[in-house]
């Protein structure tokens, strides 16, 4: 049995396997028989690369119902977030130096905003409701005349909680504030209609949606005042906003992944709902088990659960061969509980015991049954081994 056969992967929120059709499209482009030319070259092969890239942009734009020329290719969502936040802040600093975000954002958002803070920007960090949702009233009361940017993620990477980005966007636009959405977890998984959604900037990545790693995109709305200053310089590609040789094979992969996601989104969602419900019904009666987030406003592909009086690191090891994510930034150097779950009001101990189970297209019912069995038995074993608290 290979090591790969010996694992049960339930960490699709971290990354997904590349779809076979995506891989085929990418490899066809990379070999001597393919179209490997630099798209910046003016010869025929280069021009053909440009056509392939334009086709991929059309596929991704089709998924999001926007124009292909509103998409800037990046190396992934982290770069897109940085370009959106730092680029917009620099471009719009005459408007003001106040930025609003949430405490539950991904580090790819919180870290660039913290950089702005170090450079004299004023930052308001909004707390979520206990279920992870943003109270729109708290956003509205935080908006100021000098607020220039609001950055709120669409789907939380730890809890799967889905924010109402339509309402957030409306609140921002009422005050002429730019709205950036980190949609790394939601693009290709949830319907997004950028023709109808008044979002200004949206970050996305391919590898969360069965595309390759190393390619992402930033959507920049075609509206007055919506622009970003580049973070990189040289070459002038992509209107100078993100120069550098375009990785045609990665882009083709992202485009194909987007097209596949669009065609099977409803089926994917039905599949995930069935898996999520099966898993939750299998564990919810365990004493002390607690859902982090909300089923009602949550993505069915992510279920984050804590359990009372269980040490999280031991739980994670006891769950092997399940590949899941711990709620803590848990490694040999850091045992810090998840700042996202702490922001939801969970205690350190509950946050530390949190496990994120995330499901994907390849997940089968028997994987869920195994996960339920392992989770139940791991908790029973660890509880059976634990002494009572000292009097």
């Amino acid at each position, binding site marked *: 049995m290979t090591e790969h056969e010996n694992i049960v992967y339930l960490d699709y929120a971290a990354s997904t396997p590349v779809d076979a059709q995506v891989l085929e499209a990418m490899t066809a482009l990379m070999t001597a028989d393919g179209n490997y030319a630099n798209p910046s070259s003016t010869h025929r092969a280069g021009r053909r690369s440009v056509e392939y890239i334009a086709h991929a942009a059309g596929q991704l734009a089709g998924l999001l119902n926007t124009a292909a020329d509103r998409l800037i290719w990046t190396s992934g969502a982290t770069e897109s977030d940085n370009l959106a936040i730092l680029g917009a802040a620099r471009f719009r600093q005459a408007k003001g130096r106040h930025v609003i975000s949430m405490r539950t954002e991904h580090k790819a958002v919180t870290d660039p905003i913290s950089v702005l803070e170090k450079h004299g920007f004023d930052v308001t960090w909004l707390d979520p409701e206990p279920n992870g949702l943003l109270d729109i009233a708290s956003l509205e009361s935080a908006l100021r005349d000098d607020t220039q940017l609001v950055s709120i993620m669409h789907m939380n990477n730890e809890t799967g909680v889905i924010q109402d980005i339509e309402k957030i966007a409306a609140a921002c636009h009422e005050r002429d504030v730019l709205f950036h959405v980190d949609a790394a977890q939601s693009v290709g998984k949830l319907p997004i209609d950028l023709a109808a959604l008044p979002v200004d900037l949206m970050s996305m990545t391919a590898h969360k949606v069965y595309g390759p790693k190393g390619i992402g995109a930033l959507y920049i709305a075609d509206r007055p005042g919506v622009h970003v200053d580049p973070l990189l310089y040289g070459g002038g590609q992509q209107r100078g906003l993100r120069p550098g040789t375009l990785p045609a094979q990665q882009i083709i992969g992202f485009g194909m992944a987007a097209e596949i996601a669009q065609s099977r989104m409803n089926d994917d969602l039905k599949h995930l709902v069935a898996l999520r419900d099966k898993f939750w019904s299998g564990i919810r009666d365990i004493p002390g088990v607690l859902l982090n987030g909300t089923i009602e406003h949550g993505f069915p592909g992510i279920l984050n659960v804590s359990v009372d009086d269980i040490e999280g690191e031991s739980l994670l090891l006891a769950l092997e061969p399940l590949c899941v994510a711990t709620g803590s930034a848990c490694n*040999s*150097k850091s045992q810090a509980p998840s700042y996202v779950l702490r922001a939801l009001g969970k205690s350190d101990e509950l946050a530390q015991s949190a496990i994120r189970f995330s499901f994907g297209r390849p997940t089968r019912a028997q994987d869920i049954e195994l996960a339920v069995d392992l989770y139940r038995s791991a908790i029973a074993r660890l509880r059976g*081994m*634990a*002494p009572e608290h*000292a009097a």
Partner: protein
Amino acid sequence: MSSDPYSAHVRQLFGAPAHAGRLASPLRASIEAQGVRIRLSAEVDNNEVRAMRFEAWGCPHVIAAAEEVCASFEGKPVSGLLGISAADLMQSLSVPVEKTGRILVVEDAVRLLGSVVRDASNPDD
């Protein structure tokens, strides 16, 4: 990027802790500190540890350390309990230095058990 934080030895001790449990013996020691709960119990005969068990709430290194000490002290003189070294455990289990405090809790529990055993053997001292 991450590498496996657990040695094969830790994985084996954590996965099959043969000494998990509690003995009926009155010779017990409990400590709760550093986010760790540990309770040790022992049966002693003729100044020798005949059986030793642990209950523990903690990370895999703590559970592995508790199993390791129970296994290693069975059949040994009780005096050894007072001489246990956290440093030896850290080395044997390749415990990362950030977890030193937790292994010191295990060390404290073993020493406490050693003093309980000593006091029980010499009630007039």
